[in-house]
């Protein structure tokens, strides 16, 4: 069943046209991976879904409802979480305060909190610290933790593994696998090895257009296609 469907999305910033008719469907459940080179328009696509561009032409349908004209906060309240590329950490707030703001009621579900601590022990350690003082990777963990502290229907994640140590990437992969049992994840990723291990379906964006959609299994098998679309000259570990 289709959870999120994007049709003919066009975005231009100033005189630059960034997306030209991006169209793809994200089925419910599992991890959907969006691949593409730098500047292809992946971030822009995610931002448009959550409503951070002023009304892009084209439609975004979530659970059969057109949300493209809704305000960002209303889209979020439909059950969509967003982990932006720059992480969107509130540096002036403590880790705890950052987390509180990600809950609707201001109260934590204790079980979920415990799981977050397990996944990212550093967060427990720095719970009462100002978030700006976290290391780059710790900030990334906090950003992901915020998205999973409440149950959601869809999580949009922009390059979560950037700057993470291998062991953490590994842990995060586990976490995503677990979360994706109950929640759909739309993942933008450069780390192909990571993407490959998680993704069920996928799409490739290039130069503001969707140039390929399909299952991850097929794509992973077809190295020629990978080479053409992603120029994987440095193969991931």
């Amino acid at each position: 069943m289709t959870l999120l469907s994007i049709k003919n999305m066009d975005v231009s910033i100033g005189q630059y046209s960034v997306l030209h008719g991006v169209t793809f469907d994200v089925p419910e459940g599992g991890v959907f991976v969006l691949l593409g080179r730098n500047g292809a328009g992946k971030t822009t696509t995610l931002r448009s879904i959550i409503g951070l561009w002023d009304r892009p032409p084209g439609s975004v349908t979530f659970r059969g409802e057109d949300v493209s004209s809704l305000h960002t906060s209303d889209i979020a309240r439909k059950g969509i979480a967003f982990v932006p590329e720059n992480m969107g950490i509130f540096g002036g707030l403590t880790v705890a305060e950052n987390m509180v703001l990600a809950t609707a009621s201001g109260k934590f579900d204790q079980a979920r909190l415990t799981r977050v601590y397990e996944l990212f022990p550093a967060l427990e350690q720095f719970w009462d610290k100002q978030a700006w003082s976290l290391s780059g990777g710790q900030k990334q963990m906090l950003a992901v933790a915020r998205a999973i502290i409440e149950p959601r229907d869809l999580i949009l994640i922009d390059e979560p593994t950037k700057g993470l140590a291998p062991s953490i990437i590994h842990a995060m992969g586990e976490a995503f696998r677990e979360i994706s049992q109950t929640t759909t994840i739309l993942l933008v990723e450069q780390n192909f090895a990571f993407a490959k291990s998680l993704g069920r379906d996928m799409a490739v964006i290039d130069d503001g257009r969707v140039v390929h959609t399909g299952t991850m299994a097929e794509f992973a098998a077809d190295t020629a296609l990978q080479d053409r679309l992603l120029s994987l000259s440095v193969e991931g570990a």
Partner: protein
Amino acid sequence: MIDRAGGVFVLPVAIAIVAFFLIGAPSSWLTLTVAGLSMGLMIFLMASGLSLVFGLMDVLNFGHSAFVSFGAFVAASVLAWLGGWLGADSIILNSLALIAALAAAIVFGAAGGWFFERVIVKPVYKDHLRQILITMGALIVAEQLILATWGGTPVNVPRPHFLEGAIILGGSSLEVYRLFAFVVGALVYAGLYYLLNKTRIGLLIRAGVENREMVEALGFKIDRLFIGVFMLGSALAALGGAMWAGYETLITPALGAEMMVIVFIVVIIGGLGSIQGTLLGAIVVALMQNYVGYLSPKLALASNMILMMAILLWRPYGLAPAVK
């Protein structure tokens, strides 16, 4: 942070003790101290709105003083209009007139704040320079509007009889109006403290200033919050103006502008965005002004500036800045 900042909260006490020995005459000291404390709370009323908007939303609102002026004039007009109640022999009618005047100022301030946020400030969040500029433009317009509405001649502010005069205690005189101002200021402080520290609103606003988009992506309507804070800040300014009008009894449209420098100094000395700091700054400034004015009048004018420089050198972010 908290324990380290704790030390600065005894500053006013230390100042008062030193002053006691320098002044010598206990009755004068008591007069000056009580007057200073209540003046501090009146300044706090005017400054708290600025500090709130400045510290929480990171908006430097030079138009703040316009709300102070508006509050003063609106209250004065209401009091003049309710002259009958004010002149009546019933304390109840007197108080009703007073409450009506203060409420009118608050409502006007809030409404003005709404308009101000929507039209003036909204486009320039996060851009200090344009904030300074656009709010200055708004200040010019607001001052002209006051001039056009109330004219340039000073307006007399009647005040209820029960707030006139002074209580004589030993050799000291304690003005009734100042005691009243003290109470109002203390109540406002308590309310603000609760709002910012016991509710989630303060957090959300601080987060929103840093990254508006992310707060929205978390599902909050940051717009409404910002408007709310702005309305609150403006309403406080107007209330401060109304209280000040009652103190001054004769007001001109320049009132807000005249108070602005001291209000800025207080906010800076206190530390941005912290209500505690603003209160502290206001009291320290007011006490210093009274003591220095008594001990060495020549220095009185410079005392604020010197105080500000000294405090900034000692603590570059003010006495008790909001933790950032």
